[in-house]
């Protein structure tokens, strides 16, 4: 059973087609990068996979459960139990300390545990900064708090939206190092990024164009990518956006 399966997923906002007939499978422990220009549907796909939106058409299965038409309340519960979210803008609560920001995710999941939250911060190298407010932390540190918050409930899937988009090179390396470590420990990660260096870390890169999967690149190494061309021309002939399975 795959961790995540998207079958014929489309999403429209009024007359705008944000996603078009997406087929994608992610196995447990895989690291996937999603790339594409602005407006290609990356964020929409992220929202659907992250249970923050529903597809207009198609089916999304997470852990074998069809979540396509779940109620808002059930999607919240699924998101809480199975998904860890990392944001480009960190989205830390500015009046809570780093430790409390991590504990918020515990609180809404089950029970807050300060020791466990401290361990999560230690894992991202911020134990000493636990009592600091976000305004007292650098961008890289804030992103690491965001990662600690995403990890705290042991999610089956980590979704990272441009996790290094607001960071300098040094902090980018730190954050990528943490993600690499998480992947080595068996976490499944989907990263949305514009940055080829970030995508290079993933096992596969899914390239979106105009709401469709344009191609999937298997990344054993960035310079040895085996491009699996998903012929746009063929798709257009068949009236489909794109399909690829891992």
């Amino acid at each position, binding site marked *: 059973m795959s961790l995540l399966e998207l079958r014929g997923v489309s999403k429209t*906002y009024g007359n705008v087609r*944000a996603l078009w007939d997406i087929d994608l499978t992610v196995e447990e422990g895989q690291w996937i990068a999603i790339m594409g220009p602005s407006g290609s549907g990356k*964020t*929409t796909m*992220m*929202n659907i996979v*992250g249970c*923050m*939106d529903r597809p207009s058409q198609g089916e999304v299965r997470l852990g074998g459960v069809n979540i396509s038409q779940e109620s808002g*309340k059930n999607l*919240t*519960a699924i*998101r*809480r*139990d199975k998904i860890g*979210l990392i*944001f480009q*803008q960190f*989205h830390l*609560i*500015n*009046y*809570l300390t780093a430790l*409390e920001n991590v*504990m*918020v*995710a*515990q*609180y*809404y*999941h089950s029970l*807050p545990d300060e020791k466990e939250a401290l361990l999560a911060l230690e894992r991202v190298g911020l134990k000493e900064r636990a009592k600091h*407010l976000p305004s007292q932390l650098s961008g890289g540190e804030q992103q690491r708090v965001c990662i600690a*918050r995403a990890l705290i409930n042991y999610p089956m899937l980590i979704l990272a*939206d441009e996790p290094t988009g607001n960071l300098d090179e040094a902090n980018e390396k730190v954050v990528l190092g943490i993600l690499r470590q998480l992947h080595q420990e068996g976490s499944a990660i989907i990263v949305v990024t514009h940055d080829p260096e970030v995508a290079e870390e993933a096992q596969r890169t899914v390239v979106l164009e105009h709401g469709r999967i344009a191609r999937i690149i298997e990344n054993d190494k960035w310079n040895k990518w085996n491009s699996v061309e998903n012929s746009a021309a063929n798709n257009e002939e068949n009236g489909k956006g794109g399909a690829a399975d891992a």
Partner: protein
Amino acid sequence: MFWRMVKGALFRQRGKMLMIAFTVALGASLSTAMLNVMLDVGDKVNQELKTYGANINVIPKGASLLDDLYGVGEGAGVSDKYLRETELGNIKTIFWAFNIVDFTPYLEIKAGLPAEGGEVKLVGTWFSHHLELPTGEALNTGMINMKNWWEIAGEWLADGDEDAAMLGSLLAAQSGLTVGDSLTVTTAAGPVSLRVKGIFNAGSDEDGQIFVPLPVAQRLGGQEGLVSRVEVSALTTPDNALSRRAAQNPKSLSIKEWETWYCTAYVSAICYQIDEVITNAVAKPIRQVAESEGAILEKTQLLMLLITILSLVASALGISNLVTASVMERGREIGLLKAVGANNGPVSWLVLTEILLTGIIGGVAGYFAGLGFAQVIGHSVFNSAIDIKPMVIPIVAVLVFFVTLAGSVPSIRYILSLRPAEVLHGR
């Protein structure tokens, strides 16, 4: 964790929360001030109105009958019915004794003016009479208290002035008399010379009369120990249907209604109680005064109530705007809470708790500020302190709770409709 989040929001967002607390405090202070003034304004306005004269006239039964049948002016000096002066202290022994502010008797006799060749009404009364009550208490009452709007040239009479008089301004002008002059009047006791100690301008019929201390009038008229009528100034409750029915016929009331009426300071109840303690007396409300007082009081209280309601509505709107703006500002934070697994209920409860705690802080501060405002109003309008009514505390608490709750409704609706994807990813 819940309280850590609430504490964080309250203490680390002090600016926003203080602004909300200030708005609540403003509403609470106005409500506290207005409610305290409204609850005390009855006594205050009554006290104020008492300075403009009596609202009850006590006359002998026979004189009352003449008045009812023929419209003869009460105590016009033509009636030979009298009340006993010794019984007047009983007025301060009735159930509503503390509501009797002042009273003064009048004995009216006819006196001739040899110089002018006409007749004039000579009125004996108390000016500042020291009265020992049957209860052992004492009080000073009389004209000086009850007619304090009279303009006096010279001086008020004292009750011991046996050879002095006060003249109405009209009579003084007609006679060409001024303060210090002597005036000769003829009565049943013969001619008497009185020194003009004061000339008053009452703006009424009294300007054509002569006022002397009661014992002087009793001696000159040969009516020792008697008075023609008594004017009473009492603090009263505005009339209602019950009091109007009772005024017509107290026997028409049921026992329970009668008890309610008797134990409320309706002018009719006070009149009834005066009737009970003075032999052969009929106490009648001076309707125009009593009804005007009631109307003024009701309108003043209505005004206060409207101001209170308006201040609360304004406060609710202020809170609503501030809280909604604050919650919208925190849209990302709320979206984040939802993204990490919070449902609408817990997020709404979190925000509501923050606002209600802020409301409590603002409400307490506003209550004490309101007490101050009430005293400012009391001193500037009534020249006296406003009594602090403990019953205002639960009223203001309930009002602040509901106003804060009502003010939070738009923000809670915003929270319920907020989708995390919209605020976190801009879609």
